[in-house]
């Protein structure tokens, strides 16, 4: 299989119903739907700039149920960066990320060089079960970055992807094709106070 070398592959993991697809759809298409369709595996493409040339960001949206361990292993081994999503309304969903993180660790070996973002989604919800500091603590332990988002209100969604790309020190990537720092990105800079990058 010919490898498409200028693809940067991001894989989104998390328990069922935490909003993985919603985050991706909000980012790629700018839409949000209230109905829930369980995902099996979908991919999306977005053109970004990487080291001053154009490349494709390929986002793989995975299933939240654990029926397909083989597919999970394959996406981890092919992925460059990972987004681990839980819902702030469910402590259980954060728990369910642990075996996934272990799996990434086992397949990738040294995770410190790999961009990983822990994401607490549904930050618009009021019935919170996971405090922001609990999420931060978990990210601290895993030596990864952390952010809270809401796909519904479009809070921190673009920032999440830009931040993830910034974490990759081997490449210089930006969501803007012209490579100039736009207003959006400087907003991401300003938001850095809210998101802790370890």
């Amino acid at each position, binding site marked *: *299989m*010919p490898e*498409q070398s200028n693809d940067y592959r991001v894989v989104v993991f998390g328990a069922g119903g935490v909003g993985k697809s919603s985050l991706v*759809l909000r980012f790629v*298409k700018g*839409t949000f*739907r209230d109905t829930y*369709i369980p*995902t*099996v*595996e*979908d*991919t*999306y*493409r977005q053109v970004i700039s990487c080291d001053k040339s154009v490349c494709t960001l*390929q986002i793989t949206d995975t299933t939240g149920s654990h*029926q397909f361990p*083989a*597919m999970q292993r*394959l996406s981890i081994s092919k992925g460059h960066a990972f987004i681990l999503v839980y819902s702030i309304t469910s402590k259980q969903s954060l728990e369910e990320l642990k075996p996934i993180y272990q799996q990434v660790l086992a397949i990738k070996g040294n995770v410190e060089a790999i961009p990983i973002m822990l994401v607490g989604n549904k930050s618009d919800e009021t019935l919170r079960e996971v405090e922001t500091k609990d999420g931060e603590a978990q990210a601290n332990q895993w030596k990864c970055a952390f952010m809270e988002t809401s796909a519904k209100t479009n809070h921190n969604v673009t920032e999440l992807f830009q931040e993830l790309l910034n974490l990759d020190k081997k490449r210089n990537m930006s969501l803007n094709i012209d490579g100039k720092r736009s207003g959006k990105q400087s907003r991401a800079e300003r938001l850095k106070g809210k998101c802790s990058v370890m």
Partner: protein
Amino acid sequence: MDDMSPLLEMKPKYTRSHPQSIFVFIFNLVCTYHAPSPPGSEQERLEYAVNSKRRALVITLRWANTHSYLLQEEPAALAFLEELYGSLSNDSRVLRALKDLVPDLEKIIKLHSEEAKATKKKTLLRQFSNGEERLQKKQPIRNQDDILLKVYCSDHTYTTIRVAVAATGREVIAAVADKLCTTEELVLLHLSSAGEKLMLKPNDVSVFSTVSINGRLFACSRGQLSTLTPHPEQEGPTAGSMSTFELMSSKDLAYQMTMYDWELFSCVHEHELLYHTFGRQSFRRTTANLDLFLRRFNQVQLWVVTEVCLCGQLSKRVQLLKKFIKIAAHCREFKNLNSFFAIIMGMSNPAVSRLSQTWEKLPSKFKKFYAEFESMMDPSRNHRSYRLTVTKLEPPIIPFMPLLLKDMTFTHEGNKTFIDNMVNFEKMRIIANTIRQVKHCRSQPFNPDICQPNKNQAEVRGYVRKFCVIDNQRALTQLSYRLEPRRT
């Protein structure tokens, strides 16, 4: 009467509207079973009753055995069997001559009601992908199962949808449109690695099962049709796998290929041959198991061509030809005629057969073997050579499936189903004959002890189930010309 059972259910008038056919069939059986005795002595009346009931029961048992798991898709059939069992339990107290049939019927009912309960939970299948699922033992794909399909878009992203195995093209498109949140009118097509587009009709059933080896399902708007290009991974491998399998013994490879073929062949329901011949749209039934088995034939054939065409060194290519002839010989020994033919047909593909420098270097012993094998493929006198070979073999046999299907297709297309509004039973008998051949081939279970396995069985097993091939004939021919350019 006994002989009529497979024919009764094949009356196309009935099968075309399947739900009705089963009711007509059941009604006939119930009438026969409960037929009132004509006036006569008590003895005569009893004898008549026993005879009609036995007749109905014998046909029912044969019918249930032929349908096997398909019965579970017909609630009416299960209800009928249970009702018949009730009547039989009562009657057998008076009519002792019916007693011997009670356990047979009981066994069938028990099997189906238990299985029907167990299979209520839908299974997910990705049999048509290249994933690790291939390593699992094959189970028959049933109409009520769900299948996961990867459908590609024009930008080569894909979405995975989950649909029923018997889903139509229309249902697949609806699921894709829903996933993509689009209101645009989408078309569903099959895109081969060579870029050929085949539009899938909205009423096609089980659209996924005929996807070619490296083909993919695509969905796009009509406007995007002209810009569609195959996904790069459809091209297939760029390097051969000879270094992997030259270390495996030819016998082990043939054995594992035979095990896999046997699994696939066992999953094919005899009715799938009928659906295939008469057109599965009219039955709304899948032929997925048959398609998988046929697909394997193509895969083995392409594996041979791909490996030869990706082997740059002349001496290595000679080794490859020798290896394939040896594997074919072992397949024949294991009575696996499907893979045997696939290998020989792969070697006779123009991209391989034109490599005269390679064939020249092949030892004459191997040339003789190959000539003998190839003569079995001789199509003259309606494949007489092959047919004679098969009749000499004892089951279990894995038959050369494409020929059986060709026979059925010719029978179907050359003979009218109805003559003067009456069923052409002669035609049905000829078709039943072909199905009987399939039945005969697997009337004995496959004996896994025919080969003493070496230590690396798991590795060999994994390898033969995941052949990576190039399925674009033009690409293969180009590679072939690069290996041995045309002589001027």
